[in-house]
C-alpha cells in the first residue's frame, strides 16, 4: 500500500494530496459518500418531502407503501417518507452539535488537565465518575430531570460523551509535551498557551477528528434510543426514534412504519463508522490494524 506511507517530518504535502489520500481509502470514500447523501436529504427535507410531516390524514392511516406514499403512512396517516426526511434533520443536528460541544469541551478540559497537575487530579476524578455510568442510563437520567427537548438531548449527550474526548486530549497532551520540539519551544521561552495552541493542539487534531466522528455516530444512535423510550425530543417532533416507537405499536399490521426510519438510522451509523475507521487508518497509520 504505497499511498499509506507515513508522513515524515520533512515532507509537507499539499492540501489536495492530503484530501486525495484520504479519499483513496475505500472506507472514507464510501462512508463520506453515504453520509453526504443523508446530509443532503436532511438539509433539503423541506423541499423534498411530499407532505407536511406534522399534518395528520386520518383517512390515510396505515397505508402500505404505494405511489402516493412511497414509504407508506403511520397510524395518524402521516407520510413516512416525509417523517424520515425531517427526522434526519433532528438526528444530524443532535449528532453534529454534540460532536462540536464534546470536542470544544474536551480540548479545553484536556489541555487544562494535561498542563496543571492539581487540576488534573480533580478533573480526572470527575471524568472517571461520569464514565462509571452506563452511557445511555446517564443520558436517560439527565433527560428525566431536564424534560423532553432537542437542546436537552444535545446537552445530556454532550455531558455523557465529554469525558471520552477529554481523556483522549489529556493523554495526547501528556505524550506530546515531552517531545523534543516542544521542549525546544519551551527552552526558547514560549509560554504555556503559545505552546498549547501552536505545538500541542495540532497534534490532537487527528485523534479528535476520529473521536468526533464516532461520537457523532453514538449521538445519532442515542438520540434515537431516547426518542424510542419517550424521553428524547417531544413526540410531536418528527425524529427517527419517535417514528420507530410509534411503529412498535402497529408492528402486527404495519412493519413499514418502523422499518424505514430504522434503515435510515442504520445507514447513518454505518457511514459514520466507516468514515471513523477510515480516518483513523488514513490519519494515524500507527493505529492501523494490519
Amino acid at each position, binding site marked *: 500500500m504505497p499511498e499509506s506511507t507515513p508522513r515524515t517530518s520533512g515532507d509537507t504535502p499539499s492540501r489536495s494530496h492530503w484530501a486525495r489520500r484520504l479519499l483513496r481509502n475505500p472506507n472514507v470514500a464510501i462512508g463520506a459518500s453515504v453520509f453526504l447523501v443523508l446530509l443532503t436529504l436532511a438539509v433539503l427535507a423541506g423541499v423534498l418531502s411530499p407532505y407536511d410531516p406534522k399534518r395528520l390524514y386520518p383517512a390515510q392511516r396505515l397505508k402500505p407503501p404505494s405511489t402516493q406514499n412511497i414509504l407508506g403512512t403511520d397510524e395518524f396517516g402521516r407520510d413516512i417518507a416525509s417523517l424520515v426526511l425531517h427526522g434526519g434533520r433532528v438526528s444530524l443536528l443532535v449528532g453534529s452539535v454534540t460532536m462540536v460541544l464534546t470536542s470544544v469541551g474536551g480540548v479545553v478540559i484536556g489541555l487544562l488537565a494535561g498542563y496543571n497537575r492539581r487540576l488534573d487530579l480533580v478533573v480526572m476524578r470527575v471524568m472517571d465518575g461520569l464514565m462509571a*455510568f452506563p452511557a445511555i*442510563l446517564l443520558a*436517560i*437520567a439527565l*433527560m428525566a*430531570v431536564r424534560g423532553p427537548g432537542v437542546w436537552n438531548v444535545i446537552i445530556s449527550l454532550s455531558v455523557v460523551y465529554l469525558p471520552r474526548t477529554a481523556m483522549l486530549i489529556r493523554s495526547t497532551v501528556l505524550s506530546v509535551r515531552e517531545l523534543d520540539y516542544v521542549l525546544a519551544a519551551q527552552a526558547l521561552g514560549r509560554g504555556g498557551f503559545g505552546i498549547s495552541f501552536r505545538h500541542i493542539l495540532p497534534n490532537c487534531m487527528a485523534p479528535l477528528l476520529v473521536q468526533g466522528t464516532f461520537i457523532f455516530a453514538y449521538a445519532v444512535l442515542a438520540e434515537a434510543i431516547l426518542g424510542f423510550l419517550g424521553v428524547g425530543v417531544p413526540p410531536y417532533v418528527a425524529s427517527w426514534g419517535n417514528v420507530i416507537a410509534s411503529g412498535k405499536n402497529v408492528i402486527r399490521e404495519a*412493519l413499514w412504519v418502523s422499518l424505514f426510519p*430504522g434503515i435510515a438510522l442504520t445507514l447513518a451509523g*454505518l457511514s459514520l463508522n466507516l468514515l471513523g475507521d477510515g480516518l483513523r487508518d488514513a490519519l494515524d497509520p500507527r493505529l492501523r490494524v494490519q
Partner: protein
Amino acid sequence: MTTYLLRRLLALIPVMFVVVTIVFLLIHLIPGDPVAVILGPEANAQQIEDARRELGLDRPLPEQLLSFYARLLRGDLGRSYFLDRPVTQALLERAEPTLVLMTCALLVAVLIGVPSGIVAGAYHGSWWDRILMSAALLGVCIPGFWLSLNFIYLFSVRLGWLPVAGYASVFQDPVLAARYMVLPAISLGFNQSALIARIARSCMLEILRQDYIRTARAKGLAERSVVYLHAFRNALVPVVTVIGITMAILIGGAVVTEIVFNIPGLGRLIISAILRRDYPVVQGVVLVTAAAYLLINLIVDMVYAFIDPRIRYA
C-alpha cells in the same frame, strides 16, 4: 493479589464519591422548584412545604449532601412516592429479569463473537475473514432496539414461533421463560457479539505474529494445533476484558430491550419512574447500575490479573 485488590478497592472510593455526588445533584437539575414538579399541579402550598421538609430540600446543599451519604451508607435509597415502598425493595423486586436478560445476552454475545473473531483472525484475509468482519461492522451499526422489532415481526408475527413480548420467571416456568427470553437475548447479544468478534480477531492477529508461534510452526506443528492450542488460549486473555466491557454495556442495552419486549426489569422501572416523576427511583436505578458497572470492572481486572500475573506488578 491481595495488595492489588486492596489498591483497586481504594481507587474506587473517589470514583464512588463522585458518582454519588452526581446522582445527588440530579434532583437539583430539575428546572424550577423540584418539589412542585414532583407533586404536580394539584398540590397545595402546605403539601409542597411538607414534602420539601421531608426530602430535606429546605436545608443547605452541603448538609443535604452529607445526609444523602449517611443514608446511603445505611443502605437507604429513599422511598418511592408512587410505589409506596423503599427504593431498595423496588430495585430488588425488579433485579431478576434484568440479570437473567443480561446473562443470556452475554452468553449469546460470547458464543457468536469469540468463535467468529478467532476464525477471522486465524484465516486472515480469507473470504471467511471478509464475510465475518462485514457482518461484524453491520452488527455494530444496526440499532439493537430496531433489530428487536424486526425479529418480533419475523419470528413472532409472521412465523409465530415465539411470543411477541413478555416475561416468565425461570424459577417458576423454565420452558416458558426460555421461549420469552430467546428474542430479547439474541437482539441484545448480537450487537455485542460484533464488538467481541472484532477484538478477538485483532488479538488473534497480534498473537499469531509472536515469536513462540513462529517457533511452533518451525518445529513442524500442524497449523490447526498452532491456532487452537497455542494462539487461541492466549487470545482469550484480552477477550476476558472485552467480556467485562460487554457486561457493562449490556446494563444500558438491557434498559432499551426491556421496553421493547415488555420485560418487568430495572429498565422498565426507571422509564415508568420518569413518567411518574418518581425521582428517588430514578436516582436509585442509576446509582445501582453505576455501582454494578464499577463492580464488574473490578472483577474483570481481578480475573485478568489472576490469568496474567504481569498485570499485578505493573
